[in-house]
């Protein structure tokens, strides 16, 4: 279980997340994609913390901060989806075509 293996797994998760974020039509699935990428990031943080800093508490703090980011990201994402849905009643990315000047 070398750090290289961990980071490779995390890279795979991030790649999958990116694939998901780019390919999915619906906003919520886009959020899922981002969440998966953050999952990869979380694994990286904990992996590096465990394998290289031999227990520096700041590593764990960073992991907690990443988790906080995931929470905030999801919360704001859902709020925006709701707001957009109220306004446009659309939950598919194609529905929003006004984001240009």
């Amino acid at each position, binding site marked *: 279980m070398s750090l290289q293996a961990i980071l490779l797994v995390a890279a795979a998760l991030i790649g999958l997340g990116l694939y998901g974020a*780019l390919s999915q039509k619906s906003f919520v699935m886009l959020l899922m994609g981002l969440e998966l990428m953050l999952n990869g990031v979380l694994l990286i943080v904990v992996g590096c913390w465990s394998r290289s800093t031999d227990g520096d508490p700041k590593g764990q703090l960073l992991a907690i901060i990443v988790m906080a980011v995931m929470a905030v990201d999801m919360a704001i994402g859902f709020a925006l989806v709701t707001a957009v849905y109220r306004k446009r009643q659309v939950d598919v*990315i194609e529905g929003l075509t006004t984001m240009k*000047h």
Partner: protein
Amino acid sequence: MLWMLVLLPMLAGAALFAAGSERRAWLALVAGATMAAMVLLATFAAAGSWHGELLWSPMLVLHVALTPLSAAVALLVPAVALPVLAYAAFHEERPGLRRLLALLLLFVGAMELLVIAADLLTLLIGWELVGACSWALIAHQWRDASRPASGLYASVMTRLGDLGMFLAAMAAFAGSGSFAYADLAQLHGLPLALLTFGLLLSAASKSGQLPFSPWLFRAMAGPTSVSALLHAATMVAAGAYLLARLQPELSRVAWFAPATIAIGLTTALAGGVVAIVQSHAKKLLAASTSAHFGLMFIAVGAGYPAVAVAHLVAHACFKAPLFLAAGIAGQRIDGYTLARMRLGHALPWVATMSGVAALALAGVPPLGAAWTKEAIAAAGGQISPWLAAAVLLAGGLSAVYAARFQGLAFGFGDPPVQAEPPHRIERMAIGLLALVTLVLSLLWLPRIRAALGELLGVVWPASDALALAASLLLAALGLATGYLLVRRHPMLGQAGAPAAVADWWGLPTLLRMSVSMPVLLLASAAARADDALIDAAPRAVAWLGRRTATRIARDDDAVVDRGVRATETFTTALAVFGRRLGERIADGLPEGAAALVSLGGLDARRLQTGLSQHYVAMLAIGGALLTVILLLGS
């Protein structure tokens, strides 16, 4: 503190010039006070034997010190300057009076520096300052063109002498590594010789000895007080004082004594004769000054510098009032021709004072001047009896022209000449000086002489009765001939051979012929050569340039015209070409660019699909590019 002696007059002069008001009394008061202070300071300095040095640079240190001889002269200079300055404040005309008195004060300071100098460098500085002051003072009335010319003539002649001083200073430094007088003892051989030659040359030029004596006559162009102070009492004395000061060191050179005696004797005799036949009052006195300094040279050459200094003091005391009197007389008849003076009746007080001075000039005992003349004779006698005789002869000559001066200037002329009496201060000045001359007669008292000798630390030369008697005889003989000359030949020296002799035996013309003429010829020849040869090249070049310019101009017309025509045809062709193709290009480019931009704009707009997934995609691409760049960059 000794430096105060130098700085006080200089600062007073500067202050006087900067802020002084034009009122004569105020100027006289300031000058007088300064001189009185200097006299006091000099006495203290002499008493306390002060000395001082100024560190100019690690190598160059200016030393000043007082030996008994220099103390005496240092005391003499302000003493004589006091009455002369007062006289000048009231005698000279008003315009430029502040400049005159300031320069006189500056001169007194410089003279003091020269006197108290203890090393050649300080001496050189004082020597140069004094020369400059003399040039400035001679050319005081610079509005009259001849005065500056005379000033220049005088300063050039003395500068030639000064070169000797520079030579001496360099030799001293080369030899002993420092300028101090004390170190001069270490010199020997060539440097010592060079030093002696330099000093002797400069002393001779400064004291108006032959062959440099004619500049004194040109110096008489300055105002009377200048002539009195500089060209009689002090500046001219610098040369004699220098030799007296350094006589112990210089006498180690074998040829120093005879050379000095030779110069002194010839000048004394020649000067005496010139003075006798001179018809101009001030020039007569100037010739007499040269003569008496010749006597001082003889005394130094004989090995008795003290005697030279004593005679210097005496000479200053009786020559100054003579000049002052001549000044007054000259002012009255508006000219200095002796024959026209005869002011005995008009200026009785001045005449008497002048008489006392004339007697001293003549060397009539019991005046001090006589004793000093006798001392010189005695000193000369030490060398050889013939020298003593020559000295006495010179003394006789002085008696002659003393009588002639007194008789002509202040004799009793047939038609009584009317002139208003001089200002009270002028009379006081002449009176003071005459009084000092009388005080000097105390020298005759052996005790006073011994005390003075012991004070100065010198041994007076033994004077024998025979010499004394001979001098008395000669003096009486002189007075008589003078009287006769006045009576019979009052116009002597104004025409014919005596006129030529009167002008230093034609020495100025000789000098002119031998020195200035060749130099001028050489200069003009060089100028011509320069014009002929050196200028030829640039002229040729200029000529050549003009020729080519003309040819170019000619060709130019042909070429240029053809060129113009060619360009004209070319431009028309170009225009035609332009109209056809150029227009298209000129318009095509901007329109094409505009089209491109609008196309790009359209594409860019198409890029903005409004669909956020496309934006996310672009973000991803951007991120990738960024990482690639970062990777490439690292």
